[in-house]
């Protein structure tokens, strides 16, 4: 004879829901922030392999990459510039952990934050007939990163959080 057990599933689910709500409420005023701003689509070297100096025209370039952000004149001919930017920012507030214990009116922020903006430019020079003379990238992509540690010196061993080449300490 089996004894009917009280249904435990709804209680378990209720606990999970309450737990998830607690996590969501804590995170909604979260001490962590990752922010990113991207301006225009990134043009990669593989996107411009179709360009042939002496053959490709402005209109073929526009058909593939869209209109440039700027066209300017130079002694060598017209220059079309495509600009794209990528900015990243990271912020952590360690004071958040003691917020409930801090008396009203006393600042409780202890913030480490940092980031960077990587500006890239692709430029194409044309002759008098709008045929490509040459094209080149100006690359500063490594400047775009989240940065946990805002200082110049890095107190941690690099095997804890590795510092990549050409990046600031604490960048990721």
């Amino acid at each position, binding site marked *: 004879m089996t004894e009917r057990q009280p*249904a435990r599933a*709804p209680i378990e*689910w*209720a606990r999970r*829901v*309450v737990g*998830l*709500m607690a996590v*969501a*409420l804590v*995170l*909604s*005023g*979260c001490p*962590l*922030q*990752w*922010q*990113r*701003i*991207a*301006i*225009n*689509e*990134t043009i990669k070297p593989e996107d411009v392999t179709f360009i042939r100096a002496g053959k490709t025209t*402005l*209109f073929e370039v*526009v058909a593939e*990459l*869209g*209109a*440039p*952000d700027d*066209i*300017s*004149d130079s002694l060598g*001919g*017209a*220059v079309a510039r495509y600009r794209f930017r990528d900015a*990243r920012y990271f912020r952590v507030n360690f004071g958040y952990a003691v917020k409930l214990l801090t008396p009203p009116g006393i600042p409780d922020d202890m913030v480490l934050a940092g980031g960077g903006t990587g500006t890239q430019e692709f430029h194409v020079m*044309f002759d*008098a007939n*709008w045929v490509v003379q040459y094209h080149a990238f100006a690359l500063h992509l490594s400047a775009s990163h989240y940065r946990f540690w805002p200082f110049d010196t890095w107190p941690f061993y690099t095997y804890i959080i590795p510092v990549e080449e050409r990046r600031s300490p604490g960048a990721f």
Partner: protein
Amino acid sequence: MKAHKATWMTATLILSLSLLGGCAFIRGSMGDAFKDEDVAALKKGVTTRAQVAARLGAPERILEANGYEIFQYYRYDVKSGMILFFSRTNVMGDDLYVMFNKKGVVDEVVFGKRTNRLKFQFWPFGD
């Protein structure tokens, strides 16, 4: 059983609403969108500088390159998404270049539309 279902649905609703508390979607733009009929109306060898200005308004910039006078028109569109502690803002622009010959008549039209590929995103990692 119905009571359990109602409780479960209420809890799910409250959870969903609490997650939405840290959520924002923002849209902005600079300049009016280009109308296809306005761009199509620019005829090479026919439309004059004055007609272009009458149709599209004064250009944002007037450039000179390769012996052409160029009217540049542009606009920007912004879409921003934030969920909890992740946020991402994407900005893209449309550019229209109208090139005039020495007689002040349209010689070439270069138009590129990027804003139709602009997306709302909140995940700040990856491409």
